[in-house]
């Protein structure tokens, strides 16, 4: 990251190759289609590039990336909601939720497993299990306290325990879970 800030293009490319897939998965999991996730990834990198001076060497890098990615995602949802509302008022269409259908087969095992959780619980579990972030790093990325993240994780685990222990639900989405 320090080399990227110093203007080193190979370092920037390496960072994109390393972090890009993680961020893409993060976007794809948020009810977006692959095309949306592609757009959001590009938009996020442009934003990251514009504010790269806000990263301070020595600080954890993943929370910095994810904090910006969350902001881009929120802006995207806000824009999409606005567009949908405008179209609805123009067409006087019946009440339709703002959803982003994904292509067949894109819902992976993790997302299927996390489906019953609330969005905030899914988000912290994804950051911890997919990105491998610590509680402290997730707290930084989500602008919240470690205590609040711990509480979300605790509740998510309780829900997952109940879900996995329920009769008839012992098998996972792809049949590979206990």
């Amino acid at each position, binding site marked *: 990251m320090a080399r990227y800030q110093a203007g080193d293009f190979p370092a920037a490319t390496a960072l994109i190759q390393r972090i890009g897939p993680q961020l893409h998965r993060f976007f794809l999991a948020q009810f977006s289609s692959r095309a949306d996730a592609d757009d959001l990834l590009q938009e996020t990198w442009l934003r990251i590039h514009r504010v790269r001076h806000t990263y301070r060497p020595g600080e954890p890098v993943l929370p910095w990336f994810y904090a910006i990615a969350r*902001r881009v995602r929120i802006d995207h949802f806000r824009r999409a909601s606005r567009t949908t509302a405008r179209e609805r008022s123009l067409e006087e269409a019946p009440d339709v939720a703002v959803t982003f259908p994904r292509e067949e087969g894109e819902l992976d095992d993790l997302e299927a497993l996390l489906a019953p959780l609330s969005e905030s619980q899914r988000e912290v579990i994804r950051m911890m299990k997919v990105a491998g972030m610590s509680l402290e790093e997730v707290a930084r990325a989500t602008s919240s306290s470690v205590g609040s993240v711990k509480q979300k994780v605790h509740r998510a685990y309780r829900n997952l325990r109940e879900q*996995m222990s329920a009769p008839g639900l012992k098998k996972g989405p792809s049949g590979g*879970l206990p």
Partner: protein
Amino acid sequence: MIDEQVDEVLKRVSRTAHEVEPALLERVADSIHSSLQPVRPLPPTWVLTGALVLICAAVAVAGAARTGFYGIEKLTVLERLLIFTTLGILAWVAGREFVAELIPGSRHRLSPGALLTIASVALLAVFALLFRNYRTEHFVSAGIACLVTGLLLAIPAALLSWLLMRRGFAVNSVSAGLVGGALAGLCGVTMLELHCANFQALHVLVWHTAVVSVSAAAGALLGWALCEVA
């Protein structure tokens, strides 16, 4: 089923590699190539926080110099020590949180709501402890004058704070506006304590403390408006 088993299941399903089209990553790399210049990282948090506190102190003193130091002249040494130490600590905490709001991935020790609550309760406690004159002469007229004076001074403090932090990036504009507004409001209260010689308890408790809340609300509203415009 126990947590360790849930953990094991999560680890297993999250191990799946996620493929992204190489062309997409190449496009991303190409899009930043032309503007890839060296950049200077922001200074450490304590430097920015110190600068914000200095800005607030300077603006408050300048405001009081213009309107007169009548308040501080009437305060005892103990009262000065207690009031300005409290304001200094609160300004430092608010400044640090403002910096955290404008640097993505920063550690947040307090939520914006908690900061506003702590600042208001601390000021109310100190004022309630020190001021025991419970008369309410010219409560509304004198109060509104102080509220407006405090808020008017909060504007340059907010502008200078924003100028210092203009290279930052707010991941949540409403929170950043609220915290920045609270910091500017504390600057307004500091000026009022230097200037206002009206020591009626209710006047100080209601109108001086209100500067922080109103300024924070205005900051949050501005943050929300900017977010909507963007």
